[in-house]
């Protein structure tokens, strides 16, 4: 038997064990803790809310959002030793309707961290593995029924300049040239995030949806995107650029 086969069987056995356990891995044994990812929605530095009248600073379009939802997954933190610690199997659906979102990232090993990275969207594996649950449940309406895949960012609202009076962005795409699930890596700029057994330190991020239209798109030129492709990729990149680190609370 090859070493690879042995390893695979060993991991299968390990996974079997893990999958049969009813208990959540303990959080309070002192070796891991929780990190709260706080998402604060801003419009060009000002507080942002759904159904609020907005003006875009670059293209001067008048807008209002009715929906802003997006997936965050594959969160990892970089330790002071330079290793990335991944919080696997945790998927989060952020929703601006809830105001400030607090995503609870569990099972982060205790330690000091200097950077964070996460995927804006859902990795390709979860897009090809059938019916999922929790944040990835199909009934969350962040899913294309006719062309399997998650909608990574859903932004909808009204616009004074689009022909229909609306904009509808359903952005996603997980495979090949249409992959639109960028990984965002943000430094804490010298600050440390201290994860200890009992505490839940916070990483405070700013999410500015005005960036959707900072890359050259407007709601007049692109009122609707409802499938993967070049437009979805461009808008995902633009949205990604609107996510920044602000500060931590230990």
């Amino acid at each position, binding site marked *: 038997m090859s070493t690879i086969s042995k390893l695979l069987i060993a991991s299968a056995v390990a996974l*079997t064990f893990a*999958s049969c356990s009813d208990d959540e891995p303990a959080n309070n044994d002192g070796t891991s803790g929780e990190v709260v990812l706080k998402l604060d929605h801003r419009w060009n530095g000002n507080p942002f809310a759904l159904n609020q009248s907005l003006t875009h600073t670059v293209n001067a379009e008048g807008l209002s959002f009715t929906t802003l939802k997006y997936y965050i997954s594959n969160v990892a933190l970089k330790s002071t030793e330079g290793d990335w610690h991944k919080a696997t199997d945790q998927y989060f659906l952020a929703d601006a309707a809830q105001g400030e979102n607090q995503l609870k990232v569990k099972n982060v090993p205790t330690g000091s961290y200097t950077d964070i990275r996460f995927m804006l969207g859902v990795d390709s594996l979860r897009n090809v593995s*059938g019916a999922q*649950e929790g944040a990835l*449940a199909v*009934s969350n309406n962040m*899913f294309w*029924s*006719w*062309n399997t895949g998650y909608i990574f960012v859903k932004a909808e609202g009204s616009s004074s300049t689009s022909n229909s009076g609306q904009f509808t962005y359903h952005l996603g795409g997980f495979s090949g040239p249409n992959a639109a699930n960028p990984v965002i890596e943000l430094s804490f700029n010298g600050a440390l995030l201290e994860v200890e057994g009992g505490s839940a330190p916070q990483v405070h991020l700013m999410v500015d949806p005005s960036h959707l239209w900072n890359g050259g798109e407007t709601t007049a030129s692109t009122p609707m995107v409802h499938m993967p492709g070049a437009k979805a990729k461009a808008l995902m990149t633009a949205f990604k650029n609107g996510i920044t680190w602000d500060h931590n609370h230990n």
Partner: protein
Amino acid sequence: MLIRMLRALPIFGWVMLASCSPDTEELGNPYAFNPPEHFPSPVYGLGDQRPSPMGFKLGKKLFYDRQLSSDGSVSCGSCHAQVHAFADHNTKLSMGVEGRLGIRNAPPVFNMAWHPAFMWDGGINHLELVPVAPFTHPLEMNLTMAQVVQKVNQDSSYRSLAQQAFGTSQLQDHHILISLAQFMSVIVSAGSRYDMHLSTGKGLNTLEMEGLSLFRQHCSHCHSEPLLSDFSYRNNGLDSLSEDEGRALISLNPSDRGRFKVPSLRNAALTYPYMHDGRFMTLEQAIAHYRSPQATPNLDPSLSAGIPLSDQDIEALVAFIKSTTDETLISDTRWME
């Protein structure tokens, strides 16, 4: 969730099944998924996807439940009828809620565990996600998945099945989708005279044997044996410019325009009309089309010169295709409404 990531490795799936499943009665279980020996390895239905009897029963109840449409008029079984090998009742297009007509011919539902992707354009990449499309399409069942979940949980007749299948009385959408996938995966069609021929060398008469020989010469390049499809996407020259973008709708590649998934020809005598739009009513018409396909930029290279077929050849091919009709598929009470 970890289990599901290993689904491509059936052996490890078995390891987990052995260690996790409370259901130890796999042998002799009439709802077990039993891949026929003369079929290749399935894509779905082994390891952690192996159907359980209760999952199958729950899936069957869901499949035939008309409540799961916005006006209560149609179930999955309305357009996927057992007597027609789980295709529609010989209509070109299918009727959804409030008499709305769909946009493509309803494909039959059997041997689904071997399909790498679903629908005419292959837009759906997993059997468990297939039901989401008809449930939520405004021309079909016209519900949200949240409404489907709500309707199922409000119906107390689901509770004991739900409890037995998943250990909960409140089903979530993934339970519903997994049950339907389990039900569909167990619907295997491998009981035709053609199958008998593959297994024993007997079962086909002279004309059917002549048809099989022609089939292997001209057709099995795409309609590969034994499933009678290679599940690729091809343009068979129906139109010089296909109105339906077909595979290009999914791939966004213009060279995929007018390409559709090669359908299995098993049970085709029961599933007329033919093609993605149901334009041909008879097998003779469908086969005769291949004599002179329309010239189109994406035409499959194997069809560029057409297939020279005499009327006699077509008669033999039709006889062969009819030998793939599986009487057990259309009479089996396990999946009967």
